[in-house]
């Protein structure tokens, strides 16, 4: 019932349907009662009229009465018959029932219509003084009359009973039809790619929702332009930051090939390292900005092992420098529908992180496994791991694991988090070895929807 109430207050369509149905029900009830009452009245009037007609007929034809006594006419229905008798004969009434005629009407009854109880039965009686001076009473049992009147009144209700459900169906259908443009509209917007920011067609919409759609279109246009500005800013920043960096590193590279004193060369090494570090930081910042932006990305079925391979090709020199045994554990490849660059950058940052924080001679393992809901990509290292209380913090930009002395940019896991957030992946951190509380194990689960 609560759910119904909420649905009712949420949906204009339901509200309208219910309100219209209630209104129709109310009107139908009132009209029904009125029709019933007036039909009842009319039938009673007609019955009274027929009593009067009988009396008039009797008077005009100068009929004489002969009581039938005990014998019965064939078509006679005792209940519905019309009784005619001289009022004066009422005194001669024999039986104490309503069957044998004459009936014991009160002799003093005045002319005109009245309802009285005779021998335990209600009678509608018309008393008339004939031209001969005799007074007759024309009567009929009230029960029969009421029954007939009620039947007739019920019949007058029949159209309402048939029309009411028909009307409800028509109203429901009409409301649904009127709301169809809204349903089609929302379905159209719903099916859109999240990058599709073109305007909604407002031509064939009812004038009531058009202003709303126009406002939405204005909003869409603003979002599209903001996104375009953001995209251009990232592209410009990339260019503006990379050019001086390139100039710097190229000049340094040329300098290194020049003859120089031993002291100068000793100074040169940290300089080159500093340049390299700045270059890395710029690349990571741009990668983070790109990961957070909502620019168009093409999704295809991507082999996870192919991504592993590209990452290893890129990072193998780094691992070999530290003598780290890096490799892929899973035998079976898996495919996921995703933007390949997104998955590549995500895995690369995780593996880069693993190599950086694993000491010389350590081990890094990559694997992909199918799960109930999709695939699970796992990157495990033999480094110190991340303590449980630190795990939420490491995704913050520029957060650095204190005391490791590692010269990372502090952005790697933020990039991972930004990509995971956008593609709807879940990233979990734990110890690779729970007993020794060491080693980082990163699990990235991707939904089956994307595989």
């Amino acid at each position: 019932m609560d759910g119904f109430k909420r649905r009712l207050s949420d949906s204009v369509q339901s509200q309208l349907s219910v309100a219209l149905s209630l209104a129709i029900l109310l009107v139908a009830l009132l009209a029904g009662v009125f029709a019933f009452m007036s039909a009842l009245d009319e039938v009673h009037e007609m019955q009274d009229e027929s009593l009067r007609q009988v009396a008039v007929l009797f008077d005009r034809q100068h009929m004489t009465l002969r009581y039938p006594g005990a014998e019965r006419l064939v078509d006679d229905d005792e209940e519905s018959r019309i009784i005619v008798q001289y009022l004066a004969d009422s005194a001669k009434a024999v039986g104490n029932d309503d069957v044998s005629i004459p009936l014991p009407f009160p002799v003093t009854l005045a002319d005109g219509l009245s309802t009285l109880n005779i021998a335990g039965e209600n009678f509608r009686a018309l008393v008339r003084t004939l031209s001969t001076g005799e007074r007759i009473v024309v009567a009929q049992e009230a029960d029969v009359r009421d029954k007939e009147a009620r039947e007739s009144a019920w019949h007058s209700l029949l159209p309402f009973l048939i029309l009411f459900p028909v009307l409800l169906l028509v109203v429901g259908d009409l409301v649904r039809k009127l709301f169809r443009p809204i349903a089609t509209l929302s379905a159209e917007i719903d099916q859109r790619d999240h990058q599709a920011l073109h305007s909604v067609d407002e031509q064939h919409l009812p004038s009531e929702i058009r202003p709303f759609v126009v406002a939405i279109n204005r909003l869409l246009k603003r979002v599209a332009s903001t996104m375009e500005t953001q995209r251009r800013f990232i592209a410009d920043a990339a260019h503006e930051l990379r050019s001086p960096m390139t100039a710097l590193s190229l000049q340094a590279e040329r300098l290194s090939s020049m003859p120089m004193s031993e002291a100068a060369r000793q100074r040169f090494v940290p300089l080159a390292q500093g340049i390299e570090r700045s270059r890395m930081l710029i690349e990571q910042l741009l990668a983070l900005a790109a990961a957070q932006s909502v620019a168009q990305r093409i999704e295809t079925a991507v082999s996870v092992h192919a991504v592993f391979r590209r990452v290893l090709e890129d990072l193998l020199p780094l691992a070999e420098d530290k003598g780290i045994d890096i490799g892929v554990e899973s035998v079976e490849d898996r495919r996921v529908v995703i933007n390949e660059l997104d998955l590549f950058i995500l895995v690369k940052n995780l593996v880069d992180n693993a190599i950086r924080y694993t000491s010389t001679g350590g081990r890094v393992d990559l694997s992909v496994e199918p799960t109930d809901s999709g695939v699970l990509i796992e990157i495990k290292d033999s480094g110190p791991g991340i303590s449980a209380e630190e795990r939420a913090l490491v995704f913050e930009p520029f957060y650095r694991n204190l005391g490791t002395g590692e010269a990372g940019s502090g952005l790697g896991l933020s990039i991972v988090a930004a990509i995971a957030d956008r593609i709807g992946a879940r990233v979990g951190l734990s110890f690779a070895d729970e007993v020794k509380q060491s080693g980082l194990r990163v699990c990235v689960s991707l939904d089956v929807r994307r595989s």
Partner: protein
Amino acid sequence: MRILLVEDDLMIGDAIENALNDASYATDWVKNGLTALAALDTQTYDLVLLDLGLPGKDGLDVLDAIRARNNPVPLLIITARDGLDDRLRGLDAGADDFMLKPFAIAELLARMRAVLRRRGGNAQSLLDNGEVSLNLVSKRASTADVSEVQLSSREFALLQALLIRPGAILSRSELEDRIYGWGNEVESNAVEFLIHALRRKLGSHVIRNVRGMGWMVSKGV
């Protein structure tokens, strides 16, 4: 060899020009697209190094103009834009390769050599990654320590496959594809056997195993 360098950044241009001169390339350096097109009209170049972010005329427009003149000169794009669109547009427009700033001089020279080699119709008869070189005609391989070892045709096919893209990891099935023709039955452990043989001949560091992925030769420098 004559190279046209189109770069508006003075520091970058200066460094590249000097490095190219050191590597014995004759280099003409221009700083905008219009001058570049004028230079291409008057002089024949062996290779063009084209920056995309140029003042006046954008690098991609310059590329279009070059190709519109049916000039088939090998062209390498140097850019700071990492947008996938730019990259695809550049390659679609007829660039031979694409280098993202910042890069090392050594990598630029290697890419230039690769472009020239491809354009030369693979005329080069030597594959080299700095650690091992392979003569494609005599099927002999040498390293710093070992000189001119004759390889069997399958050993040669395997090493050639690895040396075509140094630094790339090839899986067992990819190597099998390169070694065996259609319809040849693949013997189990054949790849391991050949790699073992190659390592014995050339030294174990020459071919590296990447656990769970495959094998590679080092990218060298």
